[in-house]
């Protein structure tokens, strides 16, 4: 009897420990990555004057390490992607949850999951072969490899994330809200637009945040379709011009650099900036999620 109990305790203890280790190791690995990034990025600040790092020219083989075009390039491509993907994603989520009959929903949901599974290099190739010529011929851009092309591909990639998370948010809106709205004489559309979406807004915002996170970190497709020219985007017409993102810069140049060179450290500094941006976006999403959990009800009054 006693022996048997000890046996169970040992098994439980092992499993508990294992789970604990895996849980702690996730935090530990993130911390390790942060330390490594900082250690490799810090020499860049010492070796390169700040005026150079904040310059507008990126041409590393001649020691021009201006990060501004790369940061702006990433932000513009991501911004374009969000502007395209959010309305589409939200509309799709509303359609799936509120309008589509059951059998359509059953077909659409797995299809959207398949969309999420397409490798980015395949999308990049599609963008290169199919979307870039369209952008050039229909919109009259000098080349099809533009910010807009990148934004379109990223929007496509961020869509599954945005759809499934805003769908969950809409699903979480209590049925009583809908019933109440309909009972008050609101039409189906008025219920969706005035009641369901406002009630789900923090979840929808979180979907947007995670969509941004997905878009800003994407590398391969962006490298293939944005032309990689480190220009400073100015005005709306910049969407029809090429740009170079932070991720594409790291991917294209990391293989080239000698370990320990200034260029190597600057690439890590770019990685650090990217890490900070995604961290901020994730923190914002987490804060929104907390708020949603706490105050899901009664939001309509506010």
């Amino acid at each position, binding site marked *: 009897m006693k022996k048997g109990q000890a046996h169970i305790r040992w098994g439980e*203890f092992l499993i*508990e*420990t294992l789970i*604990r*280790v895996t849980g*702690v*190791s996730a935090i*530990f690995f993130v911390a*390790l990555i942060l330390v*490594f990034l900082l250690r490799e990025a810090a020499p860049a600040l010492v070796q390169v004057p700040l005026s150079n790092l904040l310059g507008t*020219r*990126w*041409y*590393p*083989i*001649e020691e*021009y390490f201006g990060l501004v*075009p790369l940061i702006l390039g990433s932000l513009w491509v991501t911004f374009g992607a969000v502007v395209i993907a959010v309305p589409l994603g939200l509309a799709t989520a509303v359609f799936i949850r509120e309008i589509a009959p059951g059998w359509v929903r059953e077909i659409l949901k797995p299809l959207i999951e398949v969309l999420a599974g397409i490798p980015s290099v395949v999308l990049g190739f599609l963008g*290169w072969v199919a979307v870039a*010529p369209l952008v*050039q011929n229909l919109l009259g851009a*000098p*080349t*099809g*490899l533009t910010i807009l092309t990148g934004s379109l591909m990223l929007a496509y990639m961020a869509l599954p994330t945005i759809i499934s998370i805003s769908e969950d948010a809409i699903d979480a809106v209590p049925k009583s809200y809908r019933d109440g709205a309909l009972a008050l004489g609101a039409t189906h559309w008025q219920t969706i637009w005035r009641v369901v979406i406002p009630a789900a807004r923090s979840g929808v915002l979180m979907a947007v945040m995670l969509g941004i996170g997905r878009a800003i970190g994407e590398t391969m497709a962006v*490298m*293939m379709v944005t*032309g*990689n*020219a*480190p*220009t*400073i985007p100015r005005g709306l017409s910049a969407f029809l*011009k*090429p740009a*170079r993102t932070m991720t594409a810069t790291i991917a*294209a*140049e990391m*293989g*080239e*650099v*000698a*370990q*320990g*060179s200034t260029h190597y450290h600057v690439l890590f500094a770019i990685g650090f900036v990217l890490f900070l941006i995604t961290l901020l976006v994730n923190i914002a999403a987490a804060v929104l999620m907390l708020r949603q959990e706490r105050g899901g009800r009664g939001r309509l009054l506010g």
Partner: protein
Amino acid sequence: MPRTRAMVILPLVGCLLLVSLAGCSGGAAQPPPAEAAGGFTIQNKGSDTLVNLALAWAERYTALHPEVRIAVTGGGSGTGIAALINGTVHIANASRKIKSEEVEQARANGIEPVEHVVAADAIAIVVHPHNPVDRLTIPQLSAIFSGKITNWKEVGGEDRPIVTLSRETNSGTHVFFLEEVVRQGRKDDKTLFSPETLLMPSSEGISSEIRRNPNAIGYDGLGYVTPDQKVIAVARDERGPYILPSIETVHNGTYPIARDLYMYTAGEPTGIIKEYLDWIRTPEAQAIVAELGFVPIIKH
């Protein structure tokens, strides 16, 4: 109570293990052993311009010497030289000369790079087949790629914007083009590529954009020019003569944008690597050079 203590200790042990592993990976780079079990594997990496040629050589050589294995990868001249400096390859392919900073970095790692000329190459200037422009001078090319000329009508073409294409900055072709064309061979010239220049990750990227975009102008090794691109005749200045790139015009020195292609080894090559490099200079290996559209080296 003892249970809780063990729970704290176990993850800690794991952490310590990981930290020590992470510490080890930062240590000195070790060159891979050439004599792996079951034969020799020569690690060969670098210039994308040279990669097809290096592959063809490797294929022929390993057919002649089945005991030798040669692993060829591309990535760019800078990538190959960085790998040589980091001690991960035996032979680095480069379409440009090694830079003095790279030599210093190599010496700091205890590696003395040795240069071997293995072939020559012409850089062809290519445009869309429908582009009416068929000749340009080096100063015109410099103005186009540095962004001073931005419309084709300024060089006798249609009223279209010019889109300049280049390889990434880790490409030896990029560096060679910067020095010899954009800066026109002047050492004190600090002209740069226009920031609007599209930087393509591969030769294929350049040729397919050239094929579909009538605004585009690009450059690439002669071996990579396909028949559906239009090659521009180039002159040193407006007095001419305008010359198209070919083996003859490179050998007789009339085509202005030609260069040598290199392989670099860590120290003087010995044994199997030396035999391979010696074979590359034989007429048999140089015949492959011409087959692939490059320019064989000739004994002066």
